[in-house]
């Protein structure tokens, strides 16, 4: 019992410490607007990647259309706030973020029900196709509803999301993901990932579990999109094309499938790495940014093919009731990962 308390405290303490650190950096002027924005982008990427982590990392459903849900969330949250909200109306901000999540989730449900029957690469191509359909829809959206802007993009969303809010939502997303994957549903997800047939035989309604995790994952993407719309003043369809989906995918894979810790750390590190390259390369070698980025990607996956944290979590992220059981079961977990 005492142990249980200490883990939760550790998590809480870590969160507060991180928040305090950022605040100190902000106040001391070491953290300027630029790095603040990069950090915010990293946190947004974290939330979106956590969604894909649930879908692919924990449930094993190969999705190449994650950016589409990210975009749907961004557009629907942005539109609502643009039309009816104002700069400092936090109630409306909350409602629009919720709407973003709901729209992404609803579409995920409608799309997921039929296509989650497909397996691996076939599922990948179907979700990729869905992503392209959404992108075309965004490009032509102004024909149906002019404020969406179509291919000329949508501006005018109140920029009301600041670091505090984004940080809070990130923490909530992490806690939500943790609670989900360690719940009985979460364990069912892992079972589906490891062996769908065995899971089915064990009495798990695999379709339901797959759709559930897909919908939840896409809702997180929608939330990330909604925040993006309130932090970056312009939405353009090309920001949500299929190449963006690969960004989420490589974060989840490099972090290690089935590891929340990995997803979070990699999402943050990846965004900072991309920006950091600007400084490392300087002006005369800026051309090489793409090349170096690609090389880092190849080298890191060759060095750690299973990802940085494959199947492992920071102790603080694991509910204590499970750690004891996990310690005993360590060998078994190792085999499966």
């Amino acid at each position, binding site marked *: 019992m005492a142990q249980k308390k200490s883990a939760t405290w550790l998590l809480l303490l870590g969160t507060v410490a991180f928040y305090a650190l950022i605040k100190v950096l902000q106040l001391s002027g070491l953290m300027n607007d630029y790095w603040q924005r990069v950090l915010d982008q990293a946190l947004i990427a974290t939330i979106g990647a956590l969604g894909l982590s649930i879908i692919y990392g924990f449930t094993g459903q*190969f999705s190449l259309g994650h950016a589409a849900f990210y975009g749907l969330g961004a557009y629907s949250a942005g539109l609502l706030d643009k039309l009816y909200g104002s700069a400092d109306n936090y109630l409306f901000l909350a409602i629009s973020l919720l709407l973003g999540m709901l729209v992404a989730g609803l579409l995920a449900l409608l799309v997921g029900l*039929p*296509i989650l*029957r*497909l*397996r691996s*690469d*076939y599922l*990948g*191509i*179907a979700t*990729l*196709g*869905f992503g*392209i*359909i959404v*992108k*075309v*829809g965004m*490009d*032509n959206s102004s024909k149906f509803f002019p404020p969406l802007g179509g291919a000329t993009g949508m501006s005018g969303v109140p920029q009301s999301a600041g670091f505090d809010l984004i940080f809070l939502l990130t923490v909530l997303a992490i806690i939500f993901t943790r609670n989900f994957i360690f719940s009985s549903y979460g364990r069912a997800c892992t079972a589906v990932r490891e062996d*769908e*047939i065995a899971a089915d*035989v064990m009495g798990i309604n695999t379709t339901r579990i797959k759709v559930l995790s897909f919908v939840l994952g896409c809702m997180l993407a929608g939330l990330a999109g909604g925040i993006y719309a309130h932090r970056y003043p312009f939405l353009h369809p090309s920001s949500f094309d*299929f190449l963006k989906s*690969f960004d989420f*995918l*490589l974060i989840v*894979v*490099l972090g290690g*499938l089935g590891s929340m810790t990995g997803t979070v750390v990699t999402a943050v590190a990846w965004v900072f790495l991309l920006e950091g390259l600007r400084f490392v390369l300087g002006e005369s070698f800026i*051309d*090489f*940014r*793409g*090349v170096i*980025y*690609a*090389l880092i*990607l*190849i080298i890191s*996956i*060759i060095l750690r*093919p*299973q990802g940085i944290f494959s199947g492992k979590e920071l102790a603080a992220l694991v509910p204590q009731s499970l750690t004891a059981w996990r310690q005993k079961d360590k060998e078994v977990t190792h085999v499966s990962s």
Partner: protein
Amino acid sequence: MEHVLDQIINGLQLGLMYALIALGYTMVYGVVKLINFAHGDVFMVGAFIGYFGFQHWGLPLPVAIVNAVVVCAILGVTIERIAYRPLRYAPKIAALISALGVSLFLEYFGSLKFVFGPNFRVVQRPFEEVRWEVFGVTITNIQVMIAVVVVLMLLALQFIVYRTKIGMAMRTVSVDHNAARLMGVNVDNTISITFAIGSAFAAVGGVLYAIAYPQIHPFMGIMPGLKAFTAAVLGGIGIIPGAVLGAIIMGQVETLTSAFLSSQLRDAIAFFILILVLLIRPSGILGKNEPDKV
């Protein structure tokens, strides 16, 4: 519905173009079960080497093609050796991410000034286009050439895979690496050869593409690569005739929706149809629907 036949021919050309790329894609997939995202970029390199050959180095077209084929085959084997072989026994997704990395690398490296440069280059066709009117439909020599090459490639692949020793080795490796090794198959060599052949096909496709749509640039491989991959999946990935069938269907769907439904919504409708087809045939059109093994 005027010009239906013309549009079908247009779609056929586009489809055969996809088939040129999809064949290499699907063969590599069949043997190593890897979505080789870099295939579209090897195709780009092929197009560039071919272009330099016949436009700048003054080589005759066949020599330029052979040149591109050799360069790409070496490139393909090198990519496999460096980026995929270390990951052969890692989870499948790791190799896929590595492939993504290689793809980005080739694009960005190619667009550096001292490599290919970022410019869009106009390709001067090495021969004139000739047009024939057949039953009121226009056919060009380029279309005929593409069709002939696709058929030749298809036959060659079928021959290699089903009639030669190396093909037998490939089929063995595709079933089980370890069992193949126990049977005395040199798995590493077989996979290298698979990549060499696949990349060589990409090179031929690249040069023909540059002639048919006379413009090249370092990012030209992304879309055709993606469409070809989709076509291969549609036909049943890993199945060689499936790639051609899938590519032809893709070409028709794209062209006909653009011509008769909506040019604005073309990609959306085309992919919608693809998803529908996949829902009816979950392993592609020619794919075998294997029952779940328990």
